[in-house]
């Protein structure tokens, strides 16, 4: 069973795409140029503090707002290995899958978690935190295959024998 552990950053409800990456930085040339401004309207220091392998735990409606794909791309580029939230906004969810960013819905973890603590994700089963197991559902097969391929474009190439 695939599992991984990461340090947690806690965010609240309704974290919108303008928070994840403000409009003014969308004109920058690359995601690497943009990522330093991730979450800047809310927590200007956060992008610089996130380490590779960290995990975001958030409230409901994470990623609401615009369809800008730079939002999940920046989260991935910052090194976040997955986002666990009570719920995700629809377009953000789809864009994340398409960019190979793992999202996990879990209704209770956010209420119990403390920033800086570690959680262990056991894929398609549960999240371990503080001696307690928080159950998680498995993603539909077609979505999991997109994530495993590293995103929709790579899955597309694979499907068409182009890789």
């Amino acid at each position: 069973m695939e599992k991984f552990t990461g340090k947690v950053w806690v965010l609240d409800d309704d974290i919108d795409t303008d928070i994840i990456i403000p409009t003014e930085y969308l004109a920058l040339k690359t995601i690497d140029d943009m990522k330093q401004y991730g979450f800047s309207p809310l927590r200007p220091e956060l992008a610089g503090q996130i380490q590779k392998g960290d995990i975001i735990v958030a409230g409901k409606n994470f990623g609401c707002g615009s369809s800008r794909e730079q939002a999940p791309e920046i989260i991935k580029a910052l090194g976040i290995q997955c986002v666990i939230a009570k719920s995700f906004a629809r377009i953000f969810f789809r864009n994340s899958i398409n960019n190979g960013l793992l999202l996990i819905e879990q209704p209770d973890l956010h209420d119990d978690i403390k920033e800086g603590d570690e959680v262990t994700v056991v894929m398609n089963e549960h999240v371990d935190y503080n001696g307690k197991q928080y159950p998680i559902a498995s993603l539909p097969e077609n979505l999991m295959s997109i994530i495993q391929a590293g995103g929709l474009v790579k899955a597309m190439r694979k499907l068409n024998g182009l890789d």
Partner: protein
Amino acid sequence: MGMTIAEKIIAAAAGVDSVKPGDIHTVKLDRLMSNDGTTHLTVDMYNNKLKNPHIADTSKLVFIVDHNVPSDSPKTAASQKKMRDFAKEHNIDFWEGKGVCHQVMIENYVRPGELIFGADSHTCSYGALGAFGTGVGCTDFLYGMVTGTSWVLVPESVKFNLTGKLPEGVYARDLILTIIGEIGANGCNYQAMEFTGEGAKTLSISDRMALCNMAVEAGAKTGIFEADEKAIEYLKEHGREPKAVYHSDPDAVYAREYTFDLSKVRPVVAKPDFVDNVVPAEEACGIEINEAFLGSCNNGRIEDLRVGAEIIKGKKVAEGVRFLVVPASQTIYRQALKEGLIDTFMEAGAIVMNPNCSVCWGSCQGVIGENEVLISTGTRNFKGRAGHPSSKVYLGSAATVTASAITGKIALASEV
């Protein structure tokens, strides 16, 4: 088991007799729209990430430059050039400076029964004409462009039964903010909001657009109306025929049902920083503003400009306030010119702009500074959405926005 309008459109696009919520289907797309917000990214992926790429059907594609018009920087100019060149090379319908993408689409393309993907979250606007429009990212757009298809998870439908008629001085904008205030910013997450009932029939196409356009602000995959006589009449006026007209079956299953009596709706305002932070407009009255914005894909139509012009006629914009008036399309702009509305706004001291997204997305005209306050007919009021992170955005109707521009404080139209 019966089906809803949304389910019938998906079933037709999937080439199956019936679908149910939770099913995942491969669907054939009727149309794809992309604007200058992200098209350059799609073009880059097409050119650099695919081997031997091709476009499934160029006649289904529409590219619209509307977010930064005219371009505001060398970077924007470069990304728009990329879009322009690609459209020319591949013979893709291309619109520049003609209006906000969703208004251009409604005026020129959208037909009842179509399944449309747009690389913009407010693509749900197209439900005003009985189409299933939904927003996607640029990778989904690329996939649709190359294959002509995509995957869809069939959403549950939520029924909004509208009764009665909106009172004088109350608008569809007040209604949709009221609905979002009640059900919450994720009240219809991954669901289709179906607007129906006798009250729905009283609403104009512009009103219906205002409702469907903001369905995404309740988390919805789309908002949709049945295409009735008003919709068919609108199509005729614009030289189009429906693809198909669907009605929800009497035994269609809904996740939930709400009833809203239009006659009880009152002017409201969404306070910062959330669209569902809705209060009666009176509760926000007196808050000083620096800027007012009348425009956007939600409220920049001729009906909205008429409302604003009627209120401001013979009056002046308050000193120290910038009042931006931005018609949603050139068609609307020219109609407003004909009716003398533009003169009325200019005489009052408003700044009338060319059709584009303007301050609604905080990257173009009228971006607001530190601690400034904007009252807007735009779609969102998130933190930093219209400019500096410390700035504040309130959302209101065309009437409330215009009244506020006159008084320099958030105000009711009945008070000016």
